[in-house]
């Protein structure tokens, strides 16, 4: 699918926080920074070419009244939740579009090419909402 069919949503402010589930096998020990962080491999488009899925934090809280930990439930191997802002994604020439799902009203997509430098930028700049155990 081409990114041409996706339009960046201006109603998603630059300060909007986007969530991305992270499995334990995609967490690295970054000894240079003394932290555990996601691998660059955790921030790629879907294998079928569609954009990278995320959740909009404000929509999650508004629509579900749940806790972030609830966002991880039902997904084996997922142990952490990473976040970055919509503004940061746009700095990386990405766009964000809302794409709510029946069971996930906060679902959104980050579209745009994700060469290695983009994936590494997400990996290095993301923040933990739920850090890995």
């Amino acid at each position, binding site marked *: 699918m081409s990114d041409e069919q996706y339009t960046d949503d201006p109603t998603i402010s630059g300060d909007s926080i986007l969530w991305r589930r992270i*499995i334990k096998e995609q967490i*690295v020990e970054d000894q240079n920074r003394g932290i555990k962080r996601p*691998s660059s491999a955790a921030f790629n488009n879907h294998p079928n070419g569609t954009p990278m899925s995320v959740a909009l934090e404000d929509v999650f809280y508004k629509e579900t009244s749940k806790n972030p930990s609830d966002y991880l439930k039902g997904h084996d191997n997922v142990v952490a939740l990473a976040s970055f802002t919509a503004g940061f994604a746009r700095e990386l020439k990405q766009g964000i579009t809302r794409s709510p799902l029946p069971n996930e009203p906060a679902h959104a997509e980050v579209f745009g090419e994700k060469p290695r430098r983009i994936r590494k930028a997400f990996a290095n700049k993301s923040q933990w909402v739920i850090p890995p155990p």
Partner: protein
Amino acid sequence: MSPAIAEPLPEMLTDQEMVEKDRNTTLTGSGTLAGRAGGWPAWLGNADEDLIRLLRLPHNWDSYGAIQVSKENAIAALNLLINVVEERTPKPAFIPTNQGSVQLEWHTGGIDLEIEILSPHRFFLSFENSNTGETLEKEITAMNISPIVDCLGTLIGH
């Protein structure tokens, strides 16, 4: 197969078997198993277990539609390591990719080194040395893995 690896992956090819299978894409670099100098890092003996763990990840293992890691790419990762590591090479992180491959990562000593297995005979090398400012991003083929050997040499302080 190196004696340091207790149990090879299913259908693991020895260095000689891989040469016979594909004479045009023999891994070069630090030489054959029989001809290499120096010992093996201790972690290499369990590297197959790390890769088998990735092979056991089910479809959709990342909750976002990830493809299962392919046996061919896992074997390629192990064969690559056998051909490039030295006794002092630290253990990489074995990271699955949603495309069904493996990414080897080292983040230590001011160096960020990532090697993605694109296919059994193609790799993508990403190297950043914060100590010197040197960066390198390059697709590597099995015909010449010396850039990988060089980057690992820098990593261990040659």
